[in-house]
């Protein structure tokens, strides 16, 4: 039987979730096609603010990447805005001409930012805050500096203001009402919030009514005039004054539309084959602008699509503001009224304000500022309409004070009932998380996120989830899922790498300052790591800091136990010649080198050389055409080969030639840890390619690429990356894989550990299946080689760092007398 066709218009957070529910229950019920006006995959819109502030990168907030669509057989049309629905023929058509037939249609067009119809609203530099394009425009504008005026002191406006400030702009917030976030906060909390923003150097003007946006004469914004005549200079204006459900498309085909697309409790519109979902919906007269209710709708639709009868009956919502360092939580209704009582707690010194509004001994509203840990607990009491008269006296102090001695936060979490909601965005309760942890044996926060969605949206309940893991797993839980890089920081390698990119940090002191290193000059663990990350991320801009390199990489030889050095020249692919061997023999004699050895990497090691002699040894080796073998580098070491089709009766391809080609292409590159390759001419595998970081096994039909092997501290056979046909392809794949590792690996993390951490399939899909990604990795590697492929030995023979090799002074005994 042919599968039924499900078409979704809009690729936002709500349909993303709906499809997950759907596939969880029945992966094969529908052929799914999605139209997205945005030119990209699905991402976590809530996290745009951390992207704006530089605390996260776009890559970090993707919820469904290209591979997800591939794996689930979902067709995603990007940059395809649907402009027509034909309800009779059951087709939808996008502006770009792409069309699709549906059996069931889900309209999930989200909402549009409201634009105040001011004169000048169409000028260049007037922005809204809704999607990644908006964030990119703001970031672009922030580079030019100047002042940003944000119109609207609600959730979005304040997150935008805080982000733009962190990007270095001067910021003014204009708010029509007397206090900020008046829909979620009472005036007292609004005031505290305003003070906090002012303390951060953000100007806040309340009761400010905009009159006109001013033109600089060329069609660009130059400022804004208020009703009272005040003029404020601005290089950008961000309008964040509210949203309107995006319902025009539905209206154009005669679906019932009020403020939003009207649906019943089964989430169907007045056309039984068309559902509406998300912010574009109007349900029982309500439109929602937060994700929690949308996820509930998503679950109902998934059920209905599979013939179920689930119903959506509306939601109560709670709000948090995601500005780092501001703790704010509000839920329910907190207007004053005769039939209402309130409980207030203020602690001015600590900047804490809490207020609960009660009616008939039940919480109907809560506002928390400065300390919000009890928010979910209050919200739980509110939703369940629990009678609180028993704990009236101590209620405001929070859950820890209920009954007996105050609990520490972990004990308080332990005391929560199983149905207490932990993650508001995703409606995940404690019992569900605990079950997932125990049944599936989850041990890391990422696992819990993946399995339960808890803390996967706005992230503010992360602390609670961690405490819950602590309670459930006891000592088995190691919160150092993020192990700090070293004692100088609490950040792990991944965060540091991410922040270096997102905050554009380009020197070691800049990293230490911006990421709040706790030591003044780092230590021998973090400095080499930072130096590598900067070399790898900014190959053309960063000046390698030699003082942050381990001695071997500073003097380009391996230090030995007695303080002498060993020297290993490159022998490309393990091939050598009488001329090379003669040159080595001469050097050994001339400098009295005590030991000469064949290494495990198919080349020759000269051991026991005095440091002062190194430049002269290199000069002689250089004359014979040798360059450094980088036997000391966290970089490309050896490419071992076997004799291959040139000589061997079993050889299928020129393994020696390919190994040499790869080594010549890749030498000089720095990598997170050392990188060793091998190419074997047939599956007999004499070059031991299947225990290397990257290995190639030649076969009749081409080249089988392997990766993630180990044969040092750990022993592990390689994984297969894939089979390619030509030498050129083999080179391209190997190089792209290396670059991916260079960009993501933690310092000192060999390929096999990195690959395990991020997943073999992920690597295969990016390198084997995604040609654009592969080419982009390849190109970035080639670019960085421009700066890396310089023989360090010849540089030093010509005088670079000569201080390294000579004593500063020689003191005779008399001098010291």
């Amino acid at each position: 039987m042919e599968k039924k066709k499900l078409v979704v218009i809009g690729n936002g957070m709500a349909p993303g979730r709906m499809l997950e529910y759907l596939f969880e229950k029945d992966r094969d019920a529908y052929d799914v096609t999605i139209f997205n006006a945005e030119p990209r995959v699905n991402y976590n819109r809530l996290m745009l603010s951390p992207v704006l502030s530089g605390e996260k990168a776009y890559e970090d907030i993707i919820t469904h990447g290209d591979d997800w669509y591939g794996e689930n057989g979902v067709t995603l049309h990007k940059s395809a805005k649907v402009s027509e629905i034909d309800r009779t023929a059951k087709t939808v058509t996008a502006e770009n001409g792409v069309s699709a037939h549906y059996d069931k249609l889900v309209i999930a067009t989200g909402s549009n930012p409201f634009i105040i119809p001011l004169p000048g609203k169409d000028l260049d530099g007037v922005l809204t805050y809704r999607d990644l394009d908006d964030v990119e425009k703001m970031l672009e504008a922030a580079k030019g500096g100047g002042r940003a005026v944000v119109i609207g002191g609600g959730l979005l406006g304040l997150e935008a203001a805080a982000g733009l400030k962190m990007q270095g702009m001067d910021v003014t917030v204009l708010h029509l009402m007397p206090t900020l976030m008046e829909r979620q906060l009472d005036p007292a909390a609004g005031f505290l919030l305003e003070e906090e923003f002012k303390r951060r150097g953000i100007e806040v003007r309340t009761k400010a009514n905009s009159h006109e946006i001013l033109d600089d004469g060329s069609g660009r914004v130059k400022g804004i005039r208020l009703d009272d005549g005040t003029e404020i200079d601005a290089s950008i204006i961000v309008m964040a004054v509210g949203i309107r459900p995006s319902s025009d498309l539905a209206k154009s085909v005669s679906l019932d539309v009020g403020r939003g697309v009207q649906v019943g409790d089964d989430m169907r519109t007045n056309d039984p084959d068309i559902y509406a979902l998300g912010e574009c919906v109007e349900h029982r007269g309500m439109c929602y602008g937060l994700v929690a209710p949308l996820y509930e709708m998503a679950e109902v639709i998934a059920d209905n699509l599979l013939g179920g009868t689930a119903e959506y009956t509306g939601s109560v919502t709670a709000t948090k503001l995601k500005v780092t360092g501001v703790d704010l939580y509000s839920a329910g209704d907190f207007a004053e009224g005769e039939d209402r009582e309130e409980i207030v707690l203020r602690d001015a010194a600590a900047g804490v304000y809490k207020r609960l509004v009660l009616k008939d001994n039940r919480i109907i509203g809560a506002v928390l500022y400065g300390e919000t840990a009890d928010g979910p607990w209050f919200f739980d009491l509110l939703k369940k309409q629990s009678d609180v008269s028993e704990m009236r006296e101590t209620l405001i102090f929070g859950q820890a004070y209920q009954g007996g001695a105050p609990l520490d936060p972990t004990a308080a979490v332990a005391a929560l009932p199983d149905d207490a909601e932990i993650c508001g965005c995703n409606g995940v309760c404690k019992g569900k998380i605990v079950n997932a942890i125990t049944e599936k044996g989850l041990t890391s926060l990422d696992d819990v996120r993946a399995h339960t969605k808890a803390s996967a949206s706005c992230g503010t309940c992360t602390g609670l989830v961690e405490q819950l893991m602590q309670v459930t797993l006891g000592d088995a839980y190691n919160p150092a899922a993020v192990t700090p890089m070293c004692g100088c920081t609490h950040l792990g390698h991944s965060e540091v790498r991410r922040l270096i990119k997102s905050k554009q940090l380009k020197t070691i002191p800049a990293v230490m300052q911006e990421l709040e290193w706790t030591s003044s000059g780092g230590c021998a663990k973090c400095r080499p790591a930072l130096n590598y990350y900067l070399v790898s991320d900014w190959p053309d801009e960063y000046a390698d800091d030699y003082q942050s390199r381990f001695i071997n990489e500073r003097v380009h030889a391996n230090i030995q136990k007695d303080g002498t050095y060993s020297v290993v020249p490159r022998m490309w692919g393990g091939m050598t010649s009488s001329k090379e061997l003669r040159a080595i023999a001469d050097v050994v004699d001339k400098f009295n080198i005590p030991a000469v050895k064949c290494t495990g990497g198919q080349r020759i090691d000269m051991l026991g050389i005095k440091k002062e002699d190194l430049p002269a040894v290199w000069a002689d080796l250089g004359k014979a055409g040798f360059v450094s073998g980088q036997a000391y580098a966290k970089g490309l070491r050896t490419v071992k080969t076997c004799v291959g089709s040139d000589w061997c009766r079993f050889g299928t391809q020129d393994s020696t030639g390919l190994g040499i080609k790869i080594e010549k292409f890749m030498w000089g590159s720095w990598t997170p840890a050392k990188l060793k390759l091998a190419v074997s001419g047939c599956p007999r595998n004499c070059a031991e390619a299947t225990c290397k970081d990257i290995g190639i096994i030649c076969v009749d039909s081409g080249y089988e690429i392997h990766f993630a092997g180990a044969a040092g501290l750990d022993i592990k056979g390689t994984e297969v990356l894939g089979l390619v046909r030509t030498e050129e392809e083999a080179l391209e794949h190997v190089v792209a894989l290396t670059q991916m590792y260079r960009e993501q690996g933690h310092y000192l993390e060999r390929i096999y550990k990195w690959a395990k951490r991020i997943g073999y399939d992920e690597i295969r899909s990016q390198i084997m299946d995604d040609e654009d990604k592969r080419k982009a990795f390849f190109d970035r590697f080639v670019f960085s080689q421009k700066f890396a492929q310089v023989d360090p030995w010849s540089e030093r023979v010509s005088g670079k760092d000569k201080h390294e090799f000579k004593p500063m002074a020689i003191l005779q005994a008399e001098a010291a007398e």
Partner: protein
Amino acid sequence: MNAETRNWVAIGDLADIPREGARVVKTDRGCIAVFRTVDDEVFALDDRCPHKGGPLSQGIVHGSSVTCPLHNWVFDLATGLARGADEGSVPVTAARVENGKVLLAADDLARRAG
């Protein structure tokens, strides 16, 4: 003895030592490592780690410490004492900078010789 009344031996220019780096001064009694910190302070220690003789001049200099290149013991440059869990100390030679010249204390050098 304070700085003024001590005898000092000039060993070269401050600029000869890289910031967060070190140079070696050879003496009859083994090498001395002369370190320069990021804020241009100089310190001199025997170039011999008390653990297994590693050349401290080849280590990474961070803050006012150096990490030995062989097995990562960390030493305080001012006192020569091992930091953290390791126990041991390296003889210190007083060092200072004057008019861009690096000076070592003659009597410390003499004591080493003796």
